[in-house]
């Protein structure tokens, strides 16, 4: 029989419920505040873009006349850059994660590498820009081409993809590996036929989030010296280019001189935000759709 007993203080329970309610109110206020700031920002940008964001804006080249200026070049530049970033980060990122999670022994070296990949994910992006400038632009003589920009951006988001893929691989239940090994499957067969299919939604979610980071990032490209004004539309990986966030950056800088640039920048921001919003929604849909097997 249990000997120690204590009386239950009903006032204490009431006090705890009170405290719980107060804490909940506090957090509600905070979230409302944050949302309000966000809404104000969105509202001002949306308002500024009205009248400027139209089909003509999306399909025209840059122009010295604000009314005629468009972001076709920046859109194509962003697309081209992603053409470099997506295959490089997916292939290198997933391969690295597979090696680290499935093949590498848990030795000191491997643990050192794992920790530092996570660290790399939090290095300021301008540092990657400087690395890209030194290595891709100068040493490999790629200048400020799409290839140089894409490679630099790949370096920046690679750690994110690696970490996301590692988490996705780790989340595959061990009983599935056991089942496969128990059937006489070797490691690669198990990875290819069992582990990767289960981990794929997680990997894709992480990869899409990494891609939206790459689309929105400015600093590393500024460090590479991506040109301000670019009248020509790029048509090969070795051409110079500009991207949406850079376009926003320079228009905002110059808005002191030419007031209309504020509106052009706002309209570009809306385009970029909508793109990112769509990408993130896709990531969420993938995650919800596939992650209920177990």
């Amino acid at each position, binding site marked *: 029989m249990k000997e120690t007993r204590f009386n239950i203080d009903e006032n204490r329970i009431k006090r705890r419920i009170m405290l719980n309610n107060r804490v909940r109110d506090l957090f509600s206020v905070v979230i409302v505040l944050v949302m309000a700031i966000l809404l104000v920002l969105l509202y001002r940008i949306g308002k500024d873009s009205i009248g400027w964001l139209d089909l003509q804006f999306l399909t025209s080249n840059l122009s010295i006349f604000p009314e005629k200026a468009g972001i076709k070049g920046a859109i194509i530049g962003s697309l081209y850059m992603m053409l470099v970033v997506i295959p490089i980060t997916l292939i290198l990122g997933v391969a690295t994660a597979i090696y680290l999670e499935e093949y590498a022994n848990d030795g000191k070296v491997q643990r050192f590498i794992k920790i530092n990949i996570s660290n790399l994910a939090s290095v300021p992006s301008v540092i990657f820009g400087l690395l890209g400038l030194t290595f891709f632009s100068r040493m490999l003589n790629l200048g400020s081409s799409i290839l140089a920009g894409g490679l630099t951006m790949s370096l920046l988001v690679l750690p994110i993809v690696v970490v996301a893929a590692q988490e996705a691989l780790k989340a595959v239940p061990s009983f599935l590996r056991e089942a*496969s090994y128990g*059937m*006489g499957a070797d490691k690669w067969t198990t990875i290819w036929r069992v582990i990767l*299919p289960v981990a794929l939604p997680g990997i894709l979610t992480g990869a899409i989030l990494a891609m939206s980071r790459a689309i929105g990032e400015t600093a590393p490209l500024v460090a590479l010296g991506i040109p301000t004004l670019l009248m020509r539309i790029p048509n090969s990986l070795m051409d110079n280019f500009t991207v949406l966030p850079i376009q926003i950056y320079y228009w905002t800088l110059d808005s002191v001189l030419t007031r209309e640039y504020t509106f052009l920048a706002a309209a570009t921001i809306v385009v970029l935000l909508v793109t990112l919003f769509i990408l993130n929604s896709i990531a969420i849909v993938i995650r919800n759709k596939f992650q209920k097997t*177990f």
Partner: protein
Amino acid sequence: MKDNNMDIVYDVKGLNLWYGDNQALKDINMKIEKNKITAIIGPSGCGKSTFVKTLNRMIENVDGVRTSGEILYYGDDIFTNKLKVEELRTRVGMVFQKPNPFPKSIYENVVYGPKIHGIKDKKLLMKITEESLRGAALWDEVKDRLNENAYSLSGGQQQRLCIARSMAVNPEVILMDEPTSALDPVATMKIEELMEDLKKDYTVVIVTHNMQQAARISDKTAFFLNGELIEFDVTSKIFGTPKDQRTEDYITGRFG
């Protein structure tokens, strides 16, 4: 009983196993016979799972495991590389305690093994599927839904699917680690009924906590205690006239 070599599937000689510094199996000597059902019983933590997982070297996936001694599989030591571990596990199938189908269709689960062995012929794969599912007494329940996800099956059906999956590669031995412990009595009975049929084609080693189950289905029973093989004999002897006091204490429920 004659000791003809072809009748001995496994000959375990002086097997020791350590998890780090902790010895889990101590000097096990045991011969497992062909087309018999061998039951492994003993209290929790005595090394039953460790022992069966050693028989197909699955135990090596655990970090820090060391073994000494020999396990001869039809005369070949499984710890030397004469027999590749992939080949051993193809010839020795395993059914786990918790049903572990792949998150694929029922059909894809069954043909997983044949496919990794390079079989592509659709007709042949379908034939294998039907035979294996019939062998696991599951065919009639799933024949109209082979393309449904395996996780839409009940726990007992999932376990029989796992049995079918391991049968699809024509193993010689099937190892089962408490295959019915996660199942209800009806599902358990279905699997027990299966056993009689299984031993015509396979050698079965089954770990069980359920003494009645061991007595009902097995030909020989091994009693483990604290990592040692205390007694190994014909099932009726173990449950009727055990030689060792500890065996008797265990089967009469005095401990464990």
